[in-house]
């Protein structure tokens, strides 16, 4: 077993087990902890798939930003650190059965499809996702230049960059931040339940 396969097995098992632990945990704080483990090992899987920039972004934005936001939400809303959110036994059984059925369907679909053959790093694919070192090609494609598609022979020249979606996402983030701060500002103190 090569080193890459060993590392992939370790992080894949860690990802799946901690995702399962997120589902099975009964308190929100433990769910957040297992979610950190799951997202961190997903970032390790990204690094193993030669997607270095995506892995770094996953660590920075997801684990460093979104999950801190979630933990703040838990702190601000939970009435106790170990608030139970348990479901009844019947719901658990039904959810488990449905999940296993759904998982079986998805596995059957994955196994039944003949995917396109993997690329063998040829000289034309100077910056495909298979090679790694993706920082410069990703930045260029966000600016509208596609060195991997424009310069490669045999590919249609109309392959374009992602300048417009990049700008749309930027404005979208600005609007979302303004809207979130507008929604979350404290207008009045909470009225007791039942009034």
């Amino acid at each position, binding site marked *: 077993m090569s080193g890459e396969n060993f590392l*992939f097995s370790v992080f*894949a098992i860690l*990802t*799946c087990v901690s*995702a*399962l632990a*997120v*589902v099975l945990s009964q308190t*929100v704080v433990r*769910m*957040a902890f297992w*979610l950190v483990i*799951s*997202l961190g090992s997903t970032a390790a*899987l*990204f690094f*193993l*798939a*030669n*997607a270095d920039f*995506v892995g770094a*972004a*996953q660590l920075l*934005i997801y684990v460093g930003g*979104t999950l801190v*936001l*979630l933990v703040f*939400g*838990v702190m*601000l*809303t939970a009435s106790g650190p170990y608030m139970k*959110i348990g479901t009844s036994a019947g719901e658990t059984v039904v*959810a488990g059965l449905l*999940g296993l059925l759904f*998982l079986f369907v*998805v*596995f059957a679909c*994955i*196994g039944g499809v003949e*995917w396109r053959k*993997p*690329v063998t790093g040829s000289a034309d694919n100077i*910056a495909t*996702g298979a090679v790694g070192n993706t920082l410069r*090609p*990703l930045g260029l*494609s966000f600016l509208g230049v596609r060195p*991997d*598609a424009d310069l490669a022979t045999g590919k249609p020249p109309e392959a374009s960059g*992602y300048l417009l979606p990049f700008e749309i*996402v930027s404005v979208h*983030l600005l609007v*979302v931040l303004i*809207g979130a701060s507008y*929604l*979350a500002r*404290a*207008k009045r103190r*909470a009225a007791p*339940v039942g009034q």
Partner: protein
Amino acid sequence: MAAGLNAYLLVGAVLFVCGVICMATKRNGIGVLMGVELVLNGANVNFVAFSRYTDLGLDGQIFSLFVIVLAAAEAAVALAIALNFYNNHLTIDVDRANKLKG
């Protein structure tokens, strides 16, 4: 387990199913949000795997970056809504959110 396209897709499928079950069974609003994060991560794993193991090129990684950014935005808005709901109801149990029911 050898690292290949199918192995990555299986990991993504497990993440997706766990997220869906988490969304369906958790009664805490933050828990539902964590399920959404798991689902988006499963999609990200698939994107990166296709970018690595097929001739898709960089498009998969670009899409996964967009997914990460949009997930951050969605978490911010959903947390603001959850805080607002908590301010009004002193709980974020999603079963209690029945004010709009006719």
